[in-house]
Each structure stands twice: as structure tokens, then as C-alpha cells.
């Protein structure tokens, strides 16, 4: 069964993309991540033009983050003030990122930049997660207590910066600069690589800002909803690269898959989950990296103007 995608200007196998959406949704529900970092490469591998893949994945991220954010909100796990500061940074980063997409496309380096960004971030995050998860599995075997991420009275350079603000929910009194910078960086990256950036923001919030773990996921999701929504609108206005038909297929299958993923996740052990996720992240990283180093079949490629911008 095929359906013609009006913006990508190609027919898509509905079953293939429904399958892809539900698989990514399942994994995102299972691991509690947005899944954009898996979805965008999969879309590109299946022949969707990179700008359309990035723009459309942003819409899917909105859908998958909304339900998560609502659930966290009801459990009072969202630090709204922190979320707003991150969001302010995220908006700036996202605006710059969408412009950057336009510039890179004109220069013919967009695909390269996306691939490099993926290899770098997935490689680093995947390796860190793998090390952590292997350690956790070993600790679980020897019945050791896990290390605490945060101990009171501990300070680092982040806490010596000016413009301090009090974040009641996170029980923090820190400068507004680090959260702004983290938000901006993640917003920028999200706009370029079509991922929510939760996989970067969550570790940054825990290790750099030293936020309590229970509010990290909720606050991150809260911020991602708004940044991804803004990114979607900007990709639509600046690059004309959001395909609503493709988005709809991915959203519907994604949100359903995510619910089953979350149910399955409740039955698996945390450290095993993280080990699996690390392996998955490294696999995607290796696949993208391979295309960068392998000799291409044809050194030449051609591109037409896509929705106005060449």
C-alpha cells in the first residue's frame, strides 16, 4: 500500500513507515528517550530527502514528548522555572540551527554535517552509556549499591558563575548561564539533526547542573515539547520541508508503539535496558559512520532546488 507524500514528492510504502514509526515509538517508550536520533537516520536510509527527514522528525518528537511530559507533570516532576530558562536558550539555538540548515544546504554540506553530528554525539553518548551500563550490570551481580549522582555540598565551576537564580523545585541556587547554554546547544543540535536532544540534555542536567534525577526527565520533556514545536514551524516556514502526511503516519504509529514500549520497559531491568540502548546507539553511529568513510559508488551527486532553496 502506497501513499504519495506531497512535500517529499515521492510515494511511500505506508506499512514500511508505520512499522518504522511503531518500532521507534516502542524503543522510545522502552528507554524513555525521544527516539528522534533513531527516526531521522532511518528516514534518510529509506530514501526520504535529508531536509524532509529532519523537518518531519521534529513533528514526531512533539507528539512523543507531549504524552511523556503530561505524565511527568501530573507526578509534579517538572521544574517549570528551569524548563523556561532552558526553553529560552532552546529558542535561540533552534532559530540559529534552522538558519544553519539553510546555509549548509546551499553549500552542499548539509548531509555531511548531519552525519558528522550523529557520529560524534551518538559515538560519545553510546560509549559513555555502555561503560556505565556494563558497570551497573556488574554491580548488580555483586549486589553493590549504585553510586549517587548528586551529593549535597558538592560544587563545581558551574556554581561560581554570575546571574544566580533560585530554582525551588530542583532545590538549586545557580547561575542562569549554564541552563541557557545547554538549552541553546540542544536546540541548535535538534534543529540540525532532527532529534529532541534528550539524550544530551539529561546527562548535562544531572552532571553539570546537578539537578535531582526525579525532575530531570520531566523538565527535559517539558522543554523539548516547545522547542520541537518551534523547530517544526520554522522548518515549515524556512525550508518548506515538513511533510504532514509522513508526519501523520509516524505520529500515529509512534505514539501507539511508545505505549507498548513503556509497558514492556516496566518488566525489564534498568541496567539491561541501558545496555541495550547503548548497543543500539552505537549501531546507528557505526552505520552512519560507514557511509562517511566507505568509497561512494559514484563520486558525483546532483541536487535540485527543494522548496525554494537549492
Amino acid at each position, binding site marked *: 500500500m502506497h501513499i504519495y507524500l506531497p512535500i517529499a514528492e515521492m510515494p511511500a510504502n505506508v506499512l514500511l513507515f508505520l512499522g518504522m514509526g511503531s518500532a521507534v515509538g516502542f524503543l522510545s517508550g522502552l528507554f524513555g528517550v525521544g527516539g528522534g536520533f533513531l527516526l531521522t537516520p532511518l528516514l534518510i536510509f529509506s530514501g526520504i530527502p535529508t531536509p524532509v527527514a529532519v523537518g518531519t522528525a521534529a513533528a514526531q518528537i512533539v507528539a512523543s514528548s507531549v*504524552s511523556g511530559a503530561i505524565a511527568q507533570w501530573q507526578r509534579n516532576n517538572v521544574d517549570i522555572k528551569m524548563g523556561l530558562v532552558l526553553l529560552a536558550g532552546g529558542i535561540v539555538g533552534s532559530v540559529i540551527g534552522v538558519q544553519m540548515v539553510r546555509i549548509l544546504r546551499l553549500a552542499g554540506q548539509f548531509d555531511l554535517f548531519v552525519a558528522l553530528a550523529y557520529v560524534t554525539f551518538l559515538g560519545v553518548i553510546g560509549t559513555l552509556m555502555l561503560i556505565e551500563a556494563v558497570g551497573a550490570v556488574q554491580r548488580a551481580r555483586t549486589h553493590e549499591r549504585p553510586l549517587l549522582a548528586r551529593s549535597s555540598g558538592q560544587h563545581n565551576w558551574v556554581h561560581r558563575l554570575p546571574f544566580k537564580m533560585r530554582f525551588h523545585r530542583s532545590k538549586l541556587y545557580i547561575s542562569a548561564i549554564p541552563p541557557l547554554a545547554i538549552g541553546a546547544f540542544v536546540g541548535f543540535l535538534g534543529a540540525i539533526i532532527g532529534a529532541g536532544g534528550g539524550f544530551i540534555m539529561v546527562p548535562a542536567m544531572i552532571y553539570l547542573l546537578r539537578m535531582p534525577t526525579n525532575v530531570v526527565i520531566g523538565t527535559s520533556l517539558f522543554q523539548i515539547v516547545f522547542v520541537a514545536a518551534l523547530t517544526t514551524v520554522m522548518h515549515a516556514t524556512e525550508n518548506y520541508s515538513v511533510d504532514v502526511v509522513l508526519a501523520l503516519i509516524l505520529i500515529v504509529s509512534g505514539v501507539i508503539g511508545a505505549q507498548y514500549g513503556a509497558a514492556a520497559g516496566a518488566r525489564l531491568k534498568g541496567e539491561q535496558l541501558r545496555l541495550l540502548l547503548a548497543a543500539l546507539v552505537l549501531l546507528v553511529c557505526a552505520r552512519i559512520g560507514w557511509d562517511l568513510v566507505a568509497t561512494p559508488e559514484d563520486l558525483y551527486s546532483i541536487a535540485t532546488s527543494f522548496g525554494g532553496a537549492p
Partner: protein
Amino acid sequence: MRGLGIFCVAGALCLVLIDGAWPFSSVAAAQTLARGHEDARRIVQRTPKAAPAPARGEQAAPLLRETVEADVSSRAIAITSAFTGTEIVVFGSVLNSRQPSAEAGYYDVIVVLEGVPEPVVARRKSNVAGLWVNTDAFDFESAPSYYAIASTRPIEEIADESFLEAHAIGLDYIRLSPAARSVIRAEPAEIKSFKEAVVRRREQDGLYLKADYAVIFIGKSLFRASIALPAHVPVGPLTARVYLFREGEVLSTFQQRVRLEREGVELWIYWFAMRHPALYGLFTVMIAVIAGLLASAAFRRKAAA
């Protein structure tokens, strides 16, 4: 677009059709097409080439010059949500045909189906520190978005190079106009390799195609050719050109336009995305938010039950 002008007086008319009012009424379209018909016929009559002299004794009566009349199976192709590519049949007949049978090979026919010219960038990768990176680029002001050629036999055997080149017939002679800014920087050999790359990549992509024996005579005068239009064909008008040859001499030509347009939901979505991008973006976000809310609400009810 320049290619059209060369062939017929109707070129100007065609330009108006391409650039002009896009949602023109079907009545106006029919009228324009009908006018195009007349024009094309007039041109055919003006074709200066004389018919080959008939062998003496074979036929006594004074012979009328052969002309070709042709049409396409569908002059308007709608791209709907179910569009998965289609096939265009170009058919026609030779008036005053002197061909004894369909298999005689007395005439040669070339059919060209061409899309609109559009700017294209060709890029070349090279290895930079172990990574394959786009390092060279070459701009073309225009390259046809789609180009298909069908003929009764290989075109090199039908007509000479200069004619093929002048009329942009064949994959080697597709009209690719390099942009001045790129020509200044590049050497002739480079330009050639970039031109070849455009044709090669489009050929691999199924957008440029060639079928040497695809025009088939069904009778003494009737011929047909079917040309594949892939699903990812760029949306825009197409032009079908038909050339009738006899021993390397062109006897007659014919031209017909094919509309390739989005229709129904596809048209509506495209129009929405291009004319009101901000609203379209917000609409997409709204769908996403509603889907997310619905899913979490549905799941919560399920979990509670």
C-alpha cells in the same frame, strides 16, 4: 523552455501555459490545447523538407508529402495520494504513408517526452582526511526535470549528430545550460564530466530514460510508444515531441503537452505548505499534540481498567 520555442510558433503560447495562471479553468485549457493543435498542424504543413522522390514505375500518381499526427494517452495526469507512477502512451499515424507493412522499417520515429527545465547543482566528492566530502560543485541554470526518449531504432542510425544536437534529441544532447558563474571557474573537461554526471545520476534515478526500439509500427501508418513515468517524477508540465524520419531526413514533427499536476488532497496540502507555511507548521504541531494527548489519555484509561 527554450527548446519548445525552437520547434513551433506555439512556443510562446506554451510559455504562457507554463508560467501563466496555474489553476486555469478546464474550458480555457481545452481551448488552449485545441489552439496548440492547430498551430502544430500549420507548422507541419510549413515543413520545408521535400518528400523523397518515389522510385519510378512503382507509383504513377503524384505523391503527397507524409505528415505525422500524434497524441498522448492522457493529456492531464493527476498526482493524487494514490499516485505510484504511470505510463504515457504516445501514439500517432503517418498520413500518406508509403510504408508497405508494419515491419518494413520504411520510416523512423523518435518520441521525446521532456519535463520543465530547472536549476540543478552537481557536486563531486573527494576524500578529505579519510572522509568523503563534497568538494566541488557546478551549477546548471537549467536541466530538464525529466527526459525520456523512445525510437524505432538507435537514434544515431536515424539522424545525424548535428540534427540531434540542435533539437536536443537523445541523452547525449539533453539541453543542460551551465551557469556562467560555474563556467568561469571550470575547465572544459570538468564541465563535460559534470554534464555526464547529471545525465548518469538522473538515469540511475529513472528520471532520464532511453528505449531504442520502443516505438513500434502497428500498421502501415500507425505507431505507438509507451513511456514510463516514475512515481517520483518532479511535478510540472511535460512536452511530448514526435519526429518522423525517412532515410535521415525529417519529414514532419508534432508536439503535444501533458499536464502533470497535483490534485485533490495532495494539491491542497502542497498549496497550504507553500502559501501559508507558518499556519501549515502550526497545523502539523497541533496534530502532533492532539495525537500525543489522545494516546496518553487512551493508555491511562486502559491502565486504569
